[in-house]
């Protein structure tokens, strides 16, 4: 995950490729930059998140060496493991109802989870960004159609959508890669609208900038303008969505597994599947089969969310705590960075400042859930009156991510 968030995280306005290669390059690397910038509680949260995420990635990578047994191993030299054995020296976390070693399956499960996250996010970035770019750049009926479609899909309970996709994609096959790809693409369908909307909003904004006009006057081709001039400037908010989506992907995968759409236990280890099998154990007081896979999910989601939250706060100058100016920033507390603002009441309306005003000061804060009106003020289909409150950065992660279950 760290590798992924490094793409172009946060506050750097220039894409990483364009950074001057001075000696301080290391300090300007996205996550490193934020780490240096952060103080106090925020730094603690970021560090804790990075550590947990790091452990998760390492566990996934080293699973074959860390796990005492294979994920589908039922017996060793001494005979069968036995079902529902309590934790012991041979099986540190006990065995499941199916006779697998719990510890091994928890460790191997990290691998499955990581693979699903990576595939799901790569696929949704490629699809979502491409569609958003085309839609925002060319506009017209295609744009309107895609916006309506994205809105409709977005309003849909995501777990149900993922279930539908899982039925279509896997339709019974459940090999390791088959299962992983099925789960990943089911999640992709849920995520694509988010990347689409964010990219489109940025593209629509950038399209009107002078440098795009001048490129066009020079006779640059559409393709070159789109990818070189517009896309490069439109990606700054993506890393934040990536972190938020990574945690969501795990929860969706676990939800699918819990409902029986996961991966067969003989093909790969999957936490949601194990929890499903643990439901009946719990009733008879067997706690180890449920506790450990569940804790694994909680820890990983917690770690990634902490990183995402911290990056989100740090990207917003008004939410960022500062060393000396911490008290001052406490007073400047209107926290929406999304055009359209929050509904925060107050004479004069902060909306006036935020909505109409300069978007240039909205540096790298991510409208994880972009205000539809900001995307298309003239677009009747995107009338999003409920949007204002959705845009506060603190809840951007929340309502973006939490309605996904």
């Amino acid at each position, binding site marked *: 995950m760290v590798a992924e968030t490094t793409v172009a995280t946060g506050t750097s306005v220039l894409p990483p490729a364009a950074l001057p290669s001075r000696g301080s390059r290391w300090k300007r690397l996205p996550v490193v930059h934020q780490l240096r910038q952060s103080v106090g509680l925020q730094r603690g949260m970021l560090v804790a998140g990075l550590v947990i995420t790091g452990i998760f990635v390492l566990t996934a990578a080293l699973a074959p060496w860390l796990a005492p047994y294979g994920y589908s191993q039922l017996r060793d030299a001494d005979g069968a493991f036995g079902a529902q054995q309590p934790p012991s020296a041979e099986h540190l976390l006990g065995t499941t109802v199916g006779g697998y070693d719990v510890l091994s399956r928890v460790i191997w499960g990290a691998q499955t989870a990581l693979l699903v996250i990576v595939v799901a996010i790569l696929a949704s970035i490629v699809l979502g960004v491409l569609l958003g770019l085309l839609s925002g750049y060319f506009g017209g009926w295609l744009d309107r159609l895609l916006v309506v479609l994205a809105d409709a899909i977005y309003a849909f309970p995501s777990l149900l959508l993922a279930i539908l996709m899982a039925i279509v994609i896997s339709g019974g096959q459940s090999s390791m890669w088959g299962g992983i790809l099925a789960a990943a693409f089911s999640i992709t369908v849920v995520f694509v609208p988010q990347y689409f909307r964010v990219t489109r909003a940025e593209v629509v904004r950038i399209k009107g900038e002078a440098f795009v006009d001048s490129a066009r006057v020079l006779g640059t081709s559409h393709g070159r303008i789109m990818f070189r001039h517009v896309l490069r400037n439109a990606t700054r908010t993506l890393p934040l969505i990536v972190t938020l989506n990574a945690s969501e992907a795990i929860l969706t995968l676990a939800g699918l597994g819990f409902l029986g759409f996961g991966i067969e236990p003989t093909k790969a280890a999957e936490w949601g599947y194990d929890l499903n099998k643990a439901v009946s154990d719990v009733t008879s007081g067997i706690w180890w089969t449920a506790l450990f896979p569940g804790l694994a999910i909680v820890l990983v989601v917690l770690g990634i969310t902490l990183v995402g939250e911290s990056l989100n706060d740090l990207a917003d100058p008004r939410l960022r705590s500062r060393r000396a100016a911490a008290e001052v920033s406490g007073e400047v507390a209107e926290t929406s960075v999304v055009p359209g603002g929050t509904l925060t009441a107050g004479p004069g309306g902060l909306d006036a400042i935020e909505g109409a005003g300069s978007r240039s000061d909205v540096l790298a804060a991510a409208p994880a859930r972009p205000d539809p009106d900001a995307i298309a003020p003239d677009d009747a289909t995107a009338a999003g009156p409920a949007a204002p409150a959705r845009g506060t950065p603190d809840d951007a992660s*929340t309502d973006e991510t*939490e309605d*996904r279950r």
Partner: protein
Amino acid sequence: MTTTTSDPQVGEGRAATPRAGARRRGGGGGLGSYILVRALLIIPTVFILVTTVFVVMRATGDPITAALGGRLTPDQLAERIHQAGYDRPIIVQYLEYIGGILRGDFGTTLSDNRPVTEVLATYGAATLELACYALLVAFVVGIPLGMLAGYFRDRTPDAVLRILAILAYATPVFFAGLILKLIFSVGLGWLPVSGRASTRAEIQIQMLDDPSGFYLVDAFRTGDPDVIVDVLQHAVLPAVALGLLTAGVFLRLVRTNVIGTLSTDYVVAARSRGVRESRLVRTHAWRPALIPIITVIGLQIAMLLAGAVLTETTFEWKGLGFQLAEYLQARDFVAVQGIVVLMAVIVAVTNFVVDIIAALIDPRVRY
């Protein structure tokens, strides 16, 4: 005292002019035309969802093969498919399906041969009941804690509460449910493990003339205090498991907005007049911070429904979600389709209602 009482009047007097102005600027029908446009927009949304679900479900092949594939000979299978009309062109089937939905006919389930509408009516109430409990928990837990966190911004209570909110988000509802069960049902034995009521209470409820499906309502109608207690006991764990998730969302929202309102001029003014801090938070900063909650509830309903599927499976709460999981296992895609479409409609309609409420509360919402 005099200052505090005169305060709202002054506020009203000041606010009256711009509010009237906004109403006039809204032009034409204002709220009326806004509601109309929003209502009309539901139709394409629902239509797209229904179409998507239909296309997706049929992309896997016909439902009969999926449900009964291994159990019948190819000839019998073909016979059944022909009877149900699944061998006709897909576009004809699609039009028929849409027509059926318009007439309120969602088809018949394959696994137990019941009209889908009957399934929806029977189990919908249970899910709705669970969702209401969960929302209640979310309000009771989320809003006060959010106010607390916002007031103590960046200090210890805030840090603790924020970590808890993230934890609430990071814990899958079914895992939360399992842990609650382990502690309170299996470990301490305080609460029942699963179901909506014990067998005895359930029988009493079924005996009623016209059971509403809402067990708490029905329990009150039986008039037996034991039944009421029993139903409530069964509701506690599922409600908490599902509600905590939403409580985390509310906590963060209220926190952000309380931080915002606490620094506004009118709060500073009230503080300088010597209004007590507790009163400041409870009356002055609190109310404006609630508006975003209302607008977010629309989104939360979608989340609650998805969460309900998982919670109901964990607690064997016989609602739509539990039933959906059952039908999924049986590969009964007609039933799945019906339940999913219903949930999509619920989400679309809730979002509409929430948008209208938001527009009523705050005229600025209408552009």
